[in-house]
């Protein structure tokens, strides 16, 4: 029998080593897998590379992981929001490396990893500082830059419902980056508000098919 359900948060994040590249779902606090991040912080790993959209707010989740000094590098589009004080202090102290990537380019680069596409061309960021060091190329008279896939060792995502095959559905706009990050890692770990029976999710409405998911843990609503 296939059973991807992890009994505890600690089981869910087991085996994440120092130096891992971790894709993290969510858009700010919306859909952020806070509980998985907190559980990961308990393990106190070092030198993590985090790929996500924002840089954590308050003291939980990603902010906590950063505050504990677990994160070497952050790849994101928008690290600066009200409340991202942990990030700001570390960044200004030169204790955290930042790679800024346009939001849609993060999404497409991670999707590319999941879809077996090593690189693609995009018009986003052409002519800007974020296009520096990128290969430029013309198609049909317009200039594009090449962007390469971003592969994760692990992905941490948050969904509303999950089943033992790893199928996931989300709630409203908390979906955001979660299904994309789920595609792009070798091992995807999902926290869900509720584990449901196999067959309970509408097969027409499953957003992340279980093929992308390795572990599911229920953390309550």
């Amino acid at each position, binding site marked *: 029998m296939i059973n991807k359900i992890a009994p505890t948060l600690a089981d869910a994040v087991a085996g994440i080593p120092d130096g891992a590249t971790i894709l993290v779902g969510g858009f700010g606090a919306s859909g952020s897998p806070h509980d998985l991040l907190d559980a990961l912080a308990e393990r106190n790993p070092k030198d993590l590379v985090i790929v996500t959209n924002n840089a954590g707010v308050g003291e939980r989740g990603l902010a906590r992981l950063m505050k504990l000094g677990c994160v070497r590098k952050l790849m994101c589009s928008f690290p600066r929001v009200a409340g991202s004080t942990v990030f700001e202090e570390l960044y200004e102290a030169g204790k955290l490396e930042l790679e800024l990537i346009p939001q849609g380019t993060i999404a497409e680069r991670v999707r590319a990893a999941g879809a077996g596409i090593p690189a693609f061309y995009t018009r986003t960021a052409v*002519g800007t500082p974020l296009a520096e060091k990128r290969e430029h190329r013309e198609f049909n008279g317009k200039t594009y830059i090449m962007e390469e896939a971003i592969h994760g060792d692990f992905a941490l995502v948050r969904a509303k419902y999950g089943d033992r095959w790893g199928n996931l559905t989300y709630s409203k706009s908390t*979906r955001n980056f979660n299904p994309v990050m789920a595609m792009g890692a070798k091992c995807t770990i999902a926290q869900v508000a509720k584990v449901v029976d196999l067959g309970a999710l509408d097969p027409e409405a499953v957003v992340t098919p279980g093929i992308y998911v390795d572990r599911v843990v229920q953390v309550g609503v």
Partner: protein
Amino acid sequence: MKNRLNRCEIAWRVARDIPNGSYVNLGVGMPLAVADYVPEDREVIFHSENGVLGMGPKPPDDQIDWDLTNAGKMPVTLLPGGCFFHHADSFSMIRGGHIDICVLGAYEVGENGDLANWILPDKKQAPAVGGAMDLAAGAKKVFLMMDFCSKDGEPKLLPRCKLPLTGVGCVTSVYTDVAIVDVTSGGFVVREMIEGVDLDYLQARCGAKLRLADNWQVLKTPKIDLPEVKQVPPGVAAAKRA
């Protein structure tokens, strides 16, 4: 100039230029107000980069659902016919040219349509770009909402942007507190000016050459009072919830 438009009045004017049936993305900040002024005889579908089409207005305080937020991380609603999708799909819509109009703020705009709106010099704080470069490169039309000059009175319409760019040759029109300026292959063309302002006034405050459209008009809006701001900053609200 005492009858300069406030940001709600600019938003009102931008909304007049959004045709029925348009798919529109509103940048975080000032542009979000545009949604409040869509003429009643038009249906406009608002896209939010975090995976929403058919975004509706802010809910009443007692109906806030933190699972349904906009690009500014503030609670919104969903209109009948709206739907949700993930970030790769959301930015496919943007990058793929399916958004008819996006409305953004700006630090500078070049007469060649270049846009600078993401980073200021000499700041110690970390840079942040979000979806601005995707929108600038992908939307069919880019409308800017901004004051004609900076708070220090410096021109924001320039021959070429001096700040690092967000996008190249992407700006369609600039909606300001004193005028509407279109970006054309021949440079900036003033389409509308508020009462009491003339081309000389604008030119004196503009870094680039301005032309006046043959069929220019007076820029008129109803008088709209700015709302009292009592919102909790989004980061704080989000942190609270987390």
